[in-house]
């Protein structure tokens, strides 16, 4: 950290806020102490300072005072700079405190703290843990390393490229994506957008992105189509298929609790003396229901349909090979 740079940037902000008219780079150099004499050094430093201020969210404007002016000028409009007046009731401040804790250890934790600091500077104190002891405590994590760069890409409307390992694939593939948004569903993060390689809308799970996410185009070059609802895209991608098949299972008494919970019917199996139950239930597809039935091991036997029965037998043999 350089104290001189902080002083110079602060002077620059105050100077450009106080001026009603656009100031040229030369006028800025005269007004703000700390810029070097040499023109090329000054130019470079001034460029970097402008960039730093914009990164902080300072609305730096460029324009001409007069249409015939040669050099562009700079200013910060007070109204664009200031946080608007804001008053919170006590109950609203309590909820603000709760919301600020959501990201705690996650990617946007710093941003949440920054927001809180600005609100505090405006005289607003977030409630501190009024309900934490007895009430609700929400948390969101972003363990996927891809979250940070993808959030930036969505924010700045930049296309990205990454390598992605689709479910069940042994080798990752290179993808180029115009990201429209990130969504957390069932505790996992997804990104939805336009897959340039496939020429179609695609959804990706962040946890399956292998390696780094790289920007592959300038900021502002991605257009999110009107009406694109990223939430809905991810929901459709991830939604459970309809359960339109019926299975009949033999289930040992006192077991298969999860199965019985969603059963269509449970009756005693009269054909055998062992007092097992016959459970009829609905399922979506053979593969995933065979997985589920195998979970119960020797407590569940699939009677029907035959392809489900075969799938479970194959699975169990797979364990033994």
């Amino acid at each position, binding site marked *: 950290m350089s104290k001189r740079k902080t002083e110079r940037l602060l002077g620059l902000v105050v100077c450009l806020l106080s001026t009603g008219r656009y100031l040229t780079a030369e006028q800025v150099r005269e007004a703000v102490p700390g810029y070097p004499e040499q023109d090329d050094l000054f130019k470079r430093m001034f460029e970097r300072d402008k960039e730093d201020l914009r990164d902080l969210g300072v609305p730096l404007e460029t324009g001409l005072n007069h249409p015939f002016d040669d050099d562009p000028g700079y200013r910060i409009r007070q109204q664009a700079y*200031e*946080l*608007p007046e804001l008053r*919170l009731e006590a109950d609203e401040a309590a*909820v603000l405190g709760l919301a600020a804790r959501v990201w705690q250890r996650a990617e946007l934790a710093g*941003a949440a703290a920054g927001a809180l600091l600005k609100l505090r500077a405006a005289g607003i104190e977030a409630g501190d843990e009024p309900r934490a002891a007895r009430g*609700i405590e929400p948390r*969101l994590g972003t363990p996927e390393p891809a979250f940070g760069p993808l959030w930036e890409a969505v924010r700045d409307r930049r296309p990205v490229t990454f390598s992605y390992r689709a479910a069940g694939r042994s080798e990752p593939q290179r993808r180029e994506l115009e990201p429209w948004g990130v969504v957390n569903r069932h505790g996992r993060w997804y990104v939805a957008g336009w897959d340039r390689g496939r020429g179609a809308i695609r959804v990706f*799970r962040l946890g399956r992105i292998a390696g780094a996410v790289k920007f592959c185009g300038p900021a502002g070059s991605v257009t999110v189509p009107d009406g694109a609802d990223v939430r809905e895209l991810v929901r459709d991608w991830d939604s459970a298929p309809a359960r339109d098949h019926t299975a009949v299972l033999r289930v040992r008494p006192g077991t298969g609790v999860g199965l019985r919970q969603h059963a269509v019917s449970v009756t005693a199996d009269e054909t055998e003396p062992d007092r097992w139950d016959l459970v009829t239930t609905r399922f979506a597809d053979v593969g995933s229901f065979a997985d589920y039935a195998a979970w119960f091991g020797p407590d569940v036997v699939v009677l029907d349909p035959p392809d489900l*029965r075969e799938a479970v037998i194959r699975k169990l043999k797979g364990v033994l090979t």
Partner: protein
Amino acid sequence: MSALVTSTERLQRLLALVPYVVSRKVVGLAETAAAFGVSERELVDDLNLLWCVELRAPDPYCPIDLSYEGGEIVVSQAESIARPLRLAVDEASALLVALRMLAEVPGLEDRSALSRLLAKLEDAAGEAASVSSQVAVQVDMPSGDGPDGLAAQLGAALSAGRRVHLRYYVPGRDEATERDVDPMRLLVVDGRPYLEGWCLRAEGVRTFRLDRVLQLTVLDQASSPPPEATPVDVDQGLFRPSPDDVHVELELSAEGRWVAEYYPCESVSDLPDGRLRVMLRTPDTGWVRRLALRLGEDCRVLSPPALVSEVHQSAAAALANYVV
């Protein structure tokens, strides 16, 4: 001052410090230092820096005037930086996304406060709020979230301070357990709701996934968790390893890789052909045995040896059921 603080980060603090004092008229050094997370010395450095700002043109002047005599800060001249800078896109998004997530959580008492706050912040953030709609979090709520639903019942029990009776499913043991619980908090971690409470059966603080609660009854007794019932530190994660845990080592095929995404693993290493070797710790290996059956040829249990033979016996017993 921390060497990690950059010039722009310090600028950010200075731009917040001035309005912080202005909006409070007079404020103590110690209190302010605490609010900004700096030492009093660092704060005094900041104040001196602000006081020294000088602009030269057209005539030299000092735009900021302040004093901190007797430990009390007063800003008498702040000119154009008397108000804080607007919320940046990241800042607005962090709060708005969190609030919209909270809005989906049933059992939240302050729903009206939440929507009022949301409207005020959206308004204050202006354009910076627009990107936040491209980040969404869906909260998984157990089925039946009507007025008689589980979450509503639980909310009522929490606010009335009543004990509840749970029929709770433990898939790893394929068991429905019955227990009385004194509710402490509703945790919503990564979109999934949990009840945290003092379990009278286990005599300890436990967290229960709401989607595994088969039945919940609000009892007449008052909820009275004992003094030793300390809330879980959610920031350390809900599942913490214990010294009694068993180490389990699995080898997964490409089809079985999802296991590493779904269960917290201690280590994960890539093998050829998209296969994975994972190490996990668990107090109870019952669920790993079931998981191995479920995965079939996509999973090999490498250790511990006892579990390897359990898996084999269980698969053999299950297969025997199919021999007619």
